């Protein structure tokens, strides 16, 4: 399939084509716009060529991207939101399914007993390990909802809210841990 392509200054050509009649016969214009015409032919690649190209694509490495990106509050906060969410959800699903499968072992009296018999230090550590992800995920969730309503959608906004979230998470985690 052949196609005629005009190579060169196409914009200039278009402008010249639609210029007023007085300008069109301008010898200067005729000399400044160079125009060549070539014939091109499209040859679609067959399955053999595709096979070679696909083999090359399989072997071709991709340059480092995820491993070299500078740690920043934006994406560290984002992945932390996901990790905390997944962790808390795994806990929720785990307990629910465990209670469904073995209600005798996982009923409230047993769970409370096991927790009560733990040493104090372990209890505080455990409470902090639960409170910190919950606080971060909840407060960062508020940040996400603010973005969804169109607020703080700038670099400065993201950083200011990010640091606020970190501060509020610290305060909240300590406060929750100290609840007796």
């Amino acid at each position: 399939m052949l196609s005629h392509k005009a190579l060169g200054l196409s914009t200039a050509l278009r402008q010249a084509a639609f210029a007023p009649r007085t300008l069109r016969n301008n010898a200067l214009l005729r000399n400044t716009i160079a125009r060549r015409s070539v014939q091109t032919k499209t040859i679609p690649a067959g399955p053999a060529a595709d096979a070679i190209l696909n083999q090359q694509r399989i072997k071709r490495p991709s340059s480092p991207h995820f491993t070299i990106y500078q740690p920043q509050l934006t994406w560290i906060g984002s992945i932390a939101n996901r990790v905390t969410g997944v962790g808390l959800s795994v806990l929720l699903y785990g307990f629910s399914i465990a209670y469904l499968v073995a209600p005798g072992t996982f009923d409230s009296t047993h769970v409370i007993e096991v927790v009560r018999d733990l040493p104090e230090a372990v209890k505080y550590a455990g409470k902090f390990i639960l409170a910190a992800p919950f606080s971060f995920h909840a407060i960062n969730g508020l940040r996400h909802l603010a973005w969804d309503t169109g607020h703080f959608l700038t670099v400065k906004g993201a950083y200011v809210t990010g640091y606020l979230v970190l501060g509020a998470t610290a305060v909240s985690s300590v406060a929750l841990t100290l609840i007796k």
Partner: protein
Amino acid sequence: MSTSLLVRSSLPRALAHRAALRSVAVQARANSTVSEHKYVAGGPIPKGGPNDAVTFPPPSPTHGSYHWVFERTLAAALVPLTAAAFVTSGTNYPILDGVLGLSLIAHSHIGFDQCIVDYLHPRKFPILGPASSWTLRAATLAATVGIFQFNTNDIGLTELIAKVWTA
């Protein structure tokens, strides 16, 4: 010179040109074989020729904007629900407890689903992707039944967290 350009750029010829190109592309796609290369971790999944366009899922508001709105509404609703659960107890307000439990499980399901779409997309993982989706749905169903049983036959989610926290 300019008039000849105007004559050359005619609309019917452009349309015929496009139709010819389209038939050639269809021919090329019919001729190209599905690749039988083993998947290399981190590598591409060549399907068809390298010049074939990327396929996109069919646009549907259920999986698009409605899903987005539902996800954000649920997340926003969790804020007052959790706050209320903090100040009351499950035994006094069992319906609040149940609604909180259901909302948390729905929120978790949507979150897990987003992880599957991001890391185990069916386009790249044709077996593991759909398998994970169905496993997630089964787990969500089991967790919902489990939470319901726990709230009905036992003290309930908020009460349990309160008692374990102060044990």
